[in-house]
């Protein structure tokens, strides 16, 4: 499939509708390793039929995130629980395990969010997560997401009760985020952190 056939094309990734052949990849990713405990099914193992139906339950829009260079599926993004009267919906995203450290994959989520603002008259998007997952991407608060709520010890996950965190992103904050310039390369962020650390040390040594 030629990525240029889809309007949702970025610099590194593109979005395409989910196809039957994707179900196996998604199921393997969702039900393997720690993801099985920390993501949507939280330790349960749905039957293949139920898995597919649950994948579409309450879904408004859902896309696979694929590499432009290799066409490999890297993850998926979902909009569900849409409330058109009140102008909000929920966003979920799953990056497949081998690619979670690759910051450019998150361009797919940005493409998806931009698509949602264009296609639907939402005021806000919500994302729900649990504390062990939130700590891995808490930097989203730097790019417009706000923690709106926290349900203490809400959910039993991986041997303990953990908080559920509810995040929101408004259309206005997203527009501001698009005009902001922040590095998206995880590698560059780490390099910059060390560079700044060196700078602080040098300043200390010279004062």
């Amino acid at each position, binding site marked *: 499939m030629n990525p240029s056939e889809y309007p949702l094309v970025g610099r*590194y990734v593109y979005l395409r509708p989910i196809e039957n052949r994707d179900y196996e990849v998604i199921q393997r990713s969702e039900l393997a390793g720690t993801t099985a405990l920390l993501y949507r099914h939280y330790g349960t193992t749905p039957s293949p039929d139920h898995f597919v139906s649950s994948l579409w339950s309450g879904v408004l829009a859902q896309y696979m995130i694929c590499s432009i260079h290799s066409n490999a599926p*890297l993850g998926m993004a979902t909009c569900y629980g849409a409330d058109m009267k009140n102008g909000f919906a929920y966003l979920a995203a799953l990056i497949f395990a*081998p690619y979670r450290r*690759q910051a450019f994959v998150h361009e797919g989520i940005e493409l998806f969010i931009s698509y949602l603002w264009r296609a639907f008259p939402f005021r806000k998007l919500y994302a729900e997560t649990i504390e062990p997952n939130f700590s891995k991407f808490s930097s989203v608060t730097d790019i417009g997401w706000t923690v709106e709520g926290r349900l203490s010890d809400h959910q039993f996950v991986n041997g303990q009760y953990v908080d559920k965190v509810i995040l929101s992103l408004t259309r206005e904050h997203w527009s501001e985020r698009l005009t902001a310039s922040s590095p*998206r390369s995880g*590698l*560059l962020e780490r390099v910059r952190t060390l560079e700044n650390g060196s*700078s602080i040390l040098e300043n200390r040594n010279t004062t």
Partner: protein
Amino acid sequence: MMSAAKPPSPILGSECFVRVFREYFDFGYVDLGSRLAEDLAMDSIMMVELLLFLEELAERPLPDQLLAEIKVVSDIFHYYQLFSSQNHPEA
């Protein structure tokens, strides 16, 4: 009105850069001579991450062919130094 310019950050040395690179990609042993494909088995997805890294350093889009010229870790370090010094000449 002139605002106080933020002082440029120093460029990392090769040893430090290699360590960050190794930790970021979860590699075992890496040195400047490590070959990206043969020694580190970097796949196309990892190479795109490198392209993003270099583009953000360069502050402009780079041709995909640039990736084809990058064979070993020292090539990445070379571009890191080059783009850092171009955009922050006093660093």
